[in-house]
């Protein structure tokens, strides 16, 4: 084969692989849209499921997922951001620092079912939260910590040292410098990581399966110690309950479409924030 045609072949190969990625996303979205758009209306979003999840809406699991994200946010944002501050601003460089980096990187690689087991052992039994919203929220919080830490660390490191020097030279303490300068300037990057991590938490099934999600609840959770319904598990539950072609099928696609819209919507918000703020602070 001549060099020219070989060049063409490889080029086609690369382009094909790229197209495959786009196709995958387009297919998923199209498939869910075609299957589920018929289900989505106001009633679907505001009414609880009926008749063993085969009819009615997704109000209860949708609210459960939103509550869950609230708990994840309340736990993982402060812990993740502050530990990133520690890693960048306070941790002395050296062996301990690289040890920390490895810990965080490996934390991100732990399979989600293992987090589920951790949550079951730690939050459900040891701390006695039972199978509950709180146990699931904290489990998911631990799961997304590495995402938040990585994003926050990158954003904090991108704030130039000259800004820190300026603040310290005016007699600010290290904390004042972090609080008034480093964190605000790093906020866009941190927010992006936060939103991505929340959308990841919204879609996880395995950890909540072990720590508190319910197949069916007659209402939204009364407290953080209640069990709850959540969209990803609801999709599984309905899908395995339904005989193909019956009305339940629409429920599955409708629920999946709602979850997909939630997650993609959040990712778009993250992209918009990143784009808008990238202009604002230029060094």
């Amino acid at each position, binding site marked *: 084969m001549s060099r020219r045609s070989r060049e063409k072949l490889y080029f086609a190969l690369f382009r094909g692989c790229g197209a495959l990625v786009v196709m995958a996303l387009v297919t998923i979205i199209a498939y869910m849209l075609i299957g589920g758009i018929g289900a989505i209306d106001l009633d679907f979003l505001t009414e609880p499921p009926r008749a063993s999840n085969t009819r009615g809406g997704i109000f209860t699991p949708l609210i459960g997922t939103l509550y869950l994200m609230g708990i994840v946010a309340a736990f993982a944002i402060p812990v993740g951001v502050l530990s990133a501050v520690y890693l960048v601003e306070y941790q*002395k*460089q050296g062996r301990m620092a690289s040890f920390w980096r490895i810990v965080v990187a490996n934390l991100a690689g732990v399979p989600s079912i293992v987090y589920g087991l951790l949550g079951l052992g730690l939050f459900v039994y040891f701390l006695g939260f039972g199978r509950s919203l709180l146990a699931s929220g904290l489990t998911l919080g631990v799961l997304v910590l590495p995402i938040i830490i990585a994003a926050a660390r990158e954003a904090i490191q991108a704030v*130039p040292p*000259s*800004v*820190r*020097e*300026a*603040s*310290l*030279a*005016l*007699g*600010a*303490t290290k904390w*004042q410098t972090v609080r*008034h*300068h480093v964190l605000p*300037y790093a906020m866009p990057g941190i927010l992006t990581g936060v939103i991505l991590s929340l959308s990841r938490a919204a879609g996880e099934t395995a950890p909540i399966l072990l720590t508190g999600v319910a197949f069916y609840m007659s209402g939204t959770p009364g407290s953080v110690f209640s069990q709850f319904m959540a969209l990803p598990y609801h999709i599984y539950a309905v899908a395995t309950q339904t005989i193909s072609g019956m009305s339940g099928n629409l429920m599955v696609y409708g629920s999946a479409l709602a979850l997909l819209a939630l997650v993609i919507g959040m990712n778009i918000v993250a992209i918009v924030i990143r784009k808008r703020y990238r202009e*604002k*602070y*230029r*060094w």
Partner: protein
Amino acid sequence: MSQIEVRDLNVWFDKNHALKNVNMDIEGKRITAIIGPSGCGKSTFIRTINRMNDTIPSCSVKGSIKVDGNDLYGEDIDVTQIRKRIGMVFQKPNPFPKSIYENIVFAPRIHGVRDRKALDAIVERSLRRAALWDEVKDRLDKSAYNLSGGQQQRLCIARALAVEPEIVLFDEPCSALDPIATAKIEDLLIDLKNDYTVVIVTHNMQQAARVADTTAFFYLGELIEHGDTQRLFEKPDEKLTEQYITGRMG
């Protein structure tokens, strides 16, 4: 008694002996220039005066620096108070990416000024003092990043003056500026010495000759010579100084 008395000052970065037995007296309300070739320790030296070297983990300091008789490296010293009394302006203008107003009020705020009127007064006074007020008074709420390099540097000077320091350290403040902006900063420096003690590091010997009352020449971490600027440039005591100022070294 001189305002700043440096005694047996030694600084190391890990094993690198950056400053060696420096003894130097710096007079109040004067401009003292520090000159010397790159890497001679001049920046390191002025950063020991407001203890900015503390932020570098590998740095260790021995000896004493007394300001008005109090040792900066003594026990029970609050570094933030030192840096409030001894301001610093850096080589590259480094305003905060905030409004001009917010740049000035940050330091007074963290040192306890809360009253809006008082802060407004500080902003005007500091900007006037740094010869920037007339250029920016109509756009105090605009980003400091819209200013030119020279204006940014004067903003940084105003920011340092906002907490009413006694001493202001300048670490090559004009090296990133054009000649016109440089001239403005030099005029400002001469004006500032009525109220402040000024120590300026410069790689530009003409600049030292133009603005400084006394000049110190550093070489390889040692203070070679310190004296009246005119005398030092016309009749240096040391052979090394002469070689440097005549351009045969450095």
